[in-house]
């Protein structure tokens, strides 16, 4: 097996005296879809924010394409191909849809005009609303905008934090279809989700987090088939 594109070893994240993430390790192979699942407050978002450079880890080591990036700030990682779709979408509500997409090309020093046009082909709903303030979009459209904006940055690894949060089941299915397309195109995806069953169905490998620690990990299919994991951590089927 080739070297993983992303490795996280013994990661620690603290907020003051509170230790939110303890000794978390995981790895993602090139072109794979890895998911971190767990309940609210399990530390999933802290892990992904540490990997993306938005948070400074208290300990551990993160490598991307073999290079240590543990203390590299987010704005430098985007240009190297480690791109985050943040929790809550974080679209720029007063900028137009087009300006939001152009911001995806910020690190390249251009408007990314060709990439923006490619995104309009891929997400026609955004093309129809290109001149509107992004805040006028529906939740599902905002999520598509956040994903399209991240794709314009040209990710090698896409870190997605709760992309289905607050969306209707039909839109969730659409979001997961797009995620699987991204993975199929060769981009590595690290997906953080509360919707654990849905995430594990899409993933190659899964990590179950509880109270800031990895309590189970393995091939996603095996985790889904493990009755103890299902009963203890995945809960009842939500239907989405």
């Amino acid at each position, binding site marked *: 097996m080739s070297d993983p594109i992303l490795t996280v070893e013994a990661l620690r994240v603290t907020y003051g005296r509170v230790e939110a993430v303890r000794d978390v390790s995981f790895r993602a192979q090139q072109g794979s879809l890895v998911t971190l699942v767990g309940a609210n407050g399990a530390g999933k978002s802290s892990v992904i924010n540490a990997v993306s450079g938005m948070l400074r880890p208290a300990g551990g080591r993160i490598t991307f394409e073999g290079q240590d990036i543990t203390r590299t*700030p987010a704005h430098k990682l985007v240009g190297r191909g480690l791109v985050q779709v943040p929790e809550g979408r974080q679209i720029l509500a007063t900028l137009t849809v087009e300006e939001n997409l152009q911001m995806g090309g910020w690190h390249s020093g251009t408007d990314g005009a060709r990439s923006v046009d490619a995104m309009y082909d891929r997400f026609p709903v955004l093309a129809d609303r290109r001149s509107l303030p992004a805040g006028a979009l529906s939740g599902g459209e905002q999520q598509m905008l956040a994903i399209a904006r991240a794709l314009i940055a040209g990710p090698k690894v896409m870190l997605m934090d709760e992309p289905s949060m607050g969306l209707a089941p039909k839109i969730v299915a659409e979001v997961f279809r797009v995620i699987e397309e991204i993975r199929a195109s060769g981009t590595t995806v690290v997906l953080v989700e509360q919707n654990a069953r849905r995430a594990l169905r899409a993933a190659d490998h899964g990590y179950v987090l509880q109270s800031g620690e990895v309590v189970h990990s393995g091939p996603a299919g095996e985790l889904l088939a493990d009755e103890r994991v299902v009963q203890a951590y995945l809960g009842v089927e939500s239907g989405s």
Partner: protein
Amino acid sequence: MQQLLNGIFIGSIYALFAIGFTLVFGILDRLNLAHPAVFAASAFVGIELVERGGLSLWAALPIVFVFGALLGLVIERVAFRPLKGRADAHFAGLISSIALAGMLVALLQWRYGPDTRRFPPGSFPDTRFEFAGAQVTLVQVVILAISLALMVGLTYMVTRTRLGRGMRAVAENPTAARVLGVDVDRVTAVTFAISSALGAVAGVLFAINVNTAQLGMGSAIELKGLAVIIVGGMGSLPGALIGGLLLGLAEVFAVQYIGSSWRDVIAFGLLFVILLLRPQGLLGARKVREV
């Protein structure tokens, strides 16, 4: 007509000063009260460049622009960036920028002394025009042209360019901007540099307009600048332009038709009336501050 033109000339300087003020407020949601000290310092530096450096008035302006930009970088690095993580960063930045302004004015006094300074005789061209029965000097026309060109250029930059998009992204959501690869500290520093460069040019133009530079000139315009950005709508560049022109016109007409002692009463009274009718300012959006 003469008073109308005079009001527009002085109003355009107020607007240029206020646009620098409101640019930082719009980006950082913070008031940089060292801005008036940049206004004053640049006037003194401009006079020195002409007097001792032997430069023409117009050659001195780009140098003062760069001087102002460098001062802006220092202000951001010293008075604002170290405090950005504090819960009371708004208030702390306000106070630290006042402290830095005090230091700048003290340095001016150390270098130039307490006396009023003027451009050397012969610095200004004598060319005058007749316009609709009013007298206009070439200097006034150039002041207006420079002010308008800088304001139009800045508005274009903020609304149409990549840097402007980055500034607006940082203004709206610094977290989202970082996720997108924006170096928030760098964009913030550039914003301060542009803001202070505009304040610096405003300072020199003001000194040219009245052929005077005083240590207290920054304090004198500070309140007017704050009034202009509140009336125009906090963070609104076109609002600052309209507010500046309104204040300039109100002052000139108050002096002409009522009396010089009534100047501030009429000018600020008019601004109060505008705020009573439109509390968010002329072009400001209603905004609820999170606490």
